[in-house]
């Protein structure tokens, strides 16, 4: 690995001028990947258990539906709630499992828990990230309802492609932001050099 000729220090990976040769996966990378896959599989298997579905997923989905209905009411939509259904004279939508943002939450939480960071930092990331994902998911449900009501021909692609991509992308980007800003703090030497 080339060293800085002036200071004889190893190159800093955050240095914009640093171009690294491709190297095999590092041990910590492998540990992260294995832990991520195991947590992901475990998390989704847990969510698919009948007891968890009955006790947590179904009530949570109903809560998402209720809050979404309230938000639509606030922005002037004439909606009524029937269980997990949001109904208006123009359009009706049933909030089901898969519309509650829990998939993205599991992906995000698995990545955070698998990442080598302090537990307090992980806890901070989990709380902030899950809250942010749920806010984004509420925006998604409201936007999808409005799309169905006013642009019905776009509803299908918005539902299955556009908003799913956006919510998952936000979850992944939130993880990357957390990991690079909070979980992996800048080395003090480098931080000083930047000031």
């Amino acid at each position, binding site marked *: *690995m080339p*060293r800085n000729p002036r200071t004889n220090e*190893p*190159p*800093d*990976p*955050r240095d*914009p*001028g*640093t*171009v*690294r040769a*491709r190297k095999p*996966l*590092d041990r*910590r*990378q492998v540990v*992260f*990947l294995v832990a*991520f*896959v195991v947590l*992901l*599989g475990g*998390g*989704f*298997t847990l969510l*698919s258990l009948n007891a968890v579905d009955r006790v947590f997923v179904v009530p949570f989905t109903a809560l998402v539906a209720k809050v979404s209905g309230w938000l639509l009411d606030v922005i002037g939509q004439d909606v009524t709630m029937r269980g997990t259904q949001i109904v208006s004279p123009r359009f009706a939508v049933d909030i089901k499992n*898969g519309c509650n943002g829990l*998939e*993205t939450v*599991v*992906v995000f939480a*698995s*990545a955070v828990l698998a*990442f*080598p960071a302090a537990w307090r930092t992980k806890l901070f990331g989990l709380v902030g990230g899950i809250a942010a994902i749920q806010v984004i998911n509420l925006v998604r449900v409201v936007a999808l309802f409005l799309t169905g009501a006013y642009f019905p021909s776009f509803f299908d692609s918005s539902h*299955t*492609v556009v908003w*799913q*991509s956006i919510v*998952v*992308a936000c*979850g*992944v*980007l939130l*993880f*990357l*932001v957390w*990991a*690079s*800003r909070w*979980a*992996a703090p*800048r*080395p*003090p*030497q*480098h931080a*000083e050099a930047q000031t």
Partner: protein
Amino acid sequence: MPLLRFLRNTLLWAIPATLLWLAITPTYNRFLARAAENAVQLTESPNHTTLKRYDQHNFLIYRDDLQGQTSTGHVSSVRVTSYHFMLIFTAAIFLGVPDTPLRRRLESLGWAALVSAFFHIGALLFRIKFIYATQLGSWSAEHYGAFGQNFWGLGRHLLDLPFRFALPLLLWSCFYLDRLLPDLVRSEATGALPRTKRRLAKDSTNSPRD
């Protein structure tokens, strides 16, 4: 990693990635359907399964030994596009990585796309076998035991949502996770443990610099 540049680059690369994805989707759907059909036929003897295009995104699943037993002629349908729209995000985060030559980013993306293609075929295989194993009533019960039903069911459940959504991050982590772990490179060079390295670095900031 320069985070703001990465986020900006990712957003900008999402535009050409979306256009390219829209352009290749019809062809890629046909390729995936054909590959999944072949993969399913590997599990059959003789071959029974055929996937026929219904529209740009959907394919109908036919089994020649069940032709007369369904009112519609086909067993079920599958929306192939749903399996690969995350390619847009994969391309955007691979191409958005700052301070890496474009050629290397494209090379990494090529590997990621190849792995993704195999993943899409596998996910479609599990989806179709899940339908056979659990969704065809007495025919399913007759041809698949409890283990088969659980195997194809769990596989489909895991590949359909969690790994489909997590695949871009998993692949990105294989190539670029060390951007988030600066200690890796530094400790490699110095032989020091990351925690020791941080302590040393902290000490050095307290001492006068040259």
